[in-house]
């Protein structure tokens, strides 16, 4: 029974990856075609610069969706459709894996990769209801594909029961919320990268033409901030929940274990990011760099720290 479920789960992941690949191609074609003379009028919202009032107010008065066309171009629609299908398969893969193991599907690195990428793509899909951020598709789906590729080939392990230290409901809460936070940080980083490119273009540098169809650097910065603070709240919770769990399992709530150190570093970087945005001279590109550094630290924490650093969190299963 377990074997069957595991193989269905794998089948679902591989199918999801195949479809994500097509979605990725479509997202990329969409970006490329945006460089061609835009078929739909997609003007960046006008920004009244100077003329009294502060930048803050101007930004807020132009808080309309940048993408005026309700559905967007064809390739983008196809890409989103494919992403939704792939994501449903991806989620089923995680669920099947959980059923096979008889527990939550995030107890080793393979499972965590599987589930966390599903959550990241899920967050990407969910934020579309709030803001049109489909232009991030190539980045997010590309990231998910690379992660899934490495996860299935390098991290794969068979279903094994939980060691006593992991038998706790905190495994469910702590890890799930950490993944949610990661999802928001990923999207925040994607927006921040776009923001940096956009700022270069606005500064007069020669840039890919699709940037002209995206929101202004300033608007991107606000979007990134709003996504990242949600991630930050989740991360703060992860940190606290982790400390509570560590107290239960290891007898101390904080011991500067390598994983604890990195979770702390990431938290401090994003606290720095939030401060940077409120500090004169740090708004704009500098704070965007911090957001990207923060996300890199998240990825580092999951890959390098798990695999090569010694510590109590030795649950990669490898």
């Amino acid at each position: 029974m377990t074997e069957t479920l595991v193989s269905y789960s794998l089948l679902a992941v591989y199918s999801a990856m195949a479809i994500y690949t097509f979605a990725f191609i479509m997202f990329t074609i969409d970006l490329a075609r945006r460089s061609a003379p835009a078929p739909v009028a997609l003007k960046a919202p006008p920004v009244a610069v100077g003329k009294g009032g502060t930048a803050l107010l101007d930004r807020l008065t132009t808080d309309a969706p940048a993408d005026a066309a309700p559905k967007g171009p064809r390739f983008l629609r196809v890409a989103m459709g494919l992403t939704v299908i792939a994501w449903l398969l991806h989620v089923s893969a995680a669920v099947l894996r959980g059923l096979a193991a008889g527990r939550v599907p995030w107890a080793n690195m393979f499972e965590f990769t599987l589930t966390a990428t599903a959550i990241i793509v899920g967050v990407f899909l969910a934020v579309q209801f709030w803001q049109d951020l489909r232009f991030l598709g190539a980045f997010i789906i590309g990231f998910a594909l690379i992660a899934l590729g490495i996860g299935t080939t390098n991290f794969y392990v068979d279903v094994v029961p939980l060691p006593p230290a992991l038998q706790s409901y905190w495994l469910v809460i702590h890890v799930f919320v950490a993944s949610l936070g990661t999802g928001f940080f990923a999207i925040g980083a994607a927006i921040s990268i776009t923001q940096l490119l956009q700022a270069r273009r606005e500064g007069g540098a020669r840039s890919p033409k699709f940037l002209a169809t995206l929101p202004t650097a300033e608007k991107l910065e606000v979007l990134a901030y709003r996504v990242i603070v949600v991630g930050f709240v989740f991360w703060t919770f992860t940190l606290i929940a982790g400390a509570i769990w560590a107290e239960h399992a290891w007898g101390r709530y904080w011991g500067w274990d390598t994983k604890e150190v990195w979770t702390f570093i990431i938290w401090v970087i994003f606290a720095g990011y939030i401060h940077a945005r409120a500090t004169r001279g740090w708004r704009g590109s500098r704070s965007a760099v911090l957001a990207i550094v923060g996300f890199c630290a998240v990825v580092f924490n999951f890959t390098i720290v798990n695999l090569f650093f010694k510590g109590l969190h030795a649950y990669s299963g490898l």
Partner: protein
Amino acid sequence: MADLSRPSDHFDSDQPVVQPRLGFVGYLRFFWRQLTSMRTALFLLLLLAIAAIPGSLVPQVSSDPNGVVQYKLEYPDLSKVLDFLQVFTTYSSVWFSAIYLLLFVSLIGCVIPRTKHHLVALLAKPPKTPARLERLAGFTSETSDADAATAVETARDVLRKQGYRVEQYGDSVSAERGYLRETGNLVFHTALIGVLVTVGIGGGFGYTGQKVVVEGKSFVNTLGGYDSFNPGRFFTEAALQPFSLHLDKFTAVYEDKNFNAYGQAIDYTASVTTALRGAAPEKQQIKVNSPLEIGGTQVYLLGNGYAPVLTIRDPDGNIVWSQPTPFLPQDAKLTSLGVIKIPDGLSEQLGMIGFLYPTTIPLQSGALASSHPDLLDPTVTLEVYTGDLGLDDGVARNAYNLDLTNLTQIAGRKAESPTIELGLGDRVDLPGGIGSIELTAIPRFASLDIHHDPSQVWVLVFAILVLGGLLTSLFIPRRRVWVKVVPVKGGGIRLEYAGLARGEDPNLAAAVTEIAQKHADQLSLRLKP
């Protein structure tokens, strides 16, 4: 737009950076202002993140003392430099402490004036309506047939219902809401100080200690009862709750169905009988994720293994030694290593290095190994030494280490007699007719961590305040809204609406529009009859 509650270099404050007046006090003030500025806070935060990195690259004395020893053996020269820089104790090092203490001084210097200012703001009325609203956010203008007094009255109602604090200035209403945003921010920062203080100072009143308890044996919570003990800075013996704990049984469950995980531990349970002084004994269980709570003290199950009972008799058959010796697990199959020292009772001092294989399998080389952590077919092998154990010079010795300097092997790879191998219940003679040895029993041991930290709940309380403050300050918008009634030449009035964000407030324009809409609806309701 200047927001005096914020540091002078906060992005939305318009205060010019003041040049310091010269003189000692001037410099002090200048320095203080620098330290409590947003820029310094940011710098220190980023510095803190960077400073935390080395401690994750190099083993730490606090979390991995053996790792430190090994590291020093491996890189002796580098270690000297690292030692000098206190990298092995990064998180209590001078430089790391300096960074976070400066950060917190900066934090306090920042929070206090802001709290004062916020208290004033909480009591103050919303500010006067600006002369011109057109340039403000969400500016909306509509005409109406209502009279000015009704329009103002209705505006007050609408705004108050939405949680605004309102004030009338002539024919206009000024309203503000979201004071909780700043409150949340202050709670957040203050609670951070709370966490630091409770961890740093509160933690000093507690202690942690370790004890290995063998099945059938007891632990009593006194200083002498511990194998190792780490008191906090302000610890006194009165903090030791008088309780005892008897390990009745230790049960380990191993996976036996899933072939991929065959022999993997899936459950550890220590069944204990505890007694707090003056109370009746109680039967309880300790598991890895559920510590035992007794008298404000937590007992954690952190490890386990076997403690073979070896019985040693002198040539006349008198028992010289018979007690369990905890053997340290070396791998997942619980191959375990132990050291036994018998200074008295035999003609010579006796030392033994033993290996336990819970489920014995012979390797091709002839050596033994264990194939399962459970006691399916146990063997204990012993290399035996005689001579001077070196226990008499008063220097503390590691119980798990045998000092071979003055010892001669009498059984083992380097001696004439081979290594002694014992199954459960086996008894063999020691070489040289000095006596005999028997493997009497193999009980399990549990290694327990015992903690007492009275400040722990306070850390949690502050952590929850941190989270609560964060949520309020990030997601509650602080905004001002104005409604102004302007008489129009030739009768009727014009209504003007506008808002001002104070901090991040992306929905301001929409909120103003909504207020304008509500106001218009209410007005037309009032006009109808």
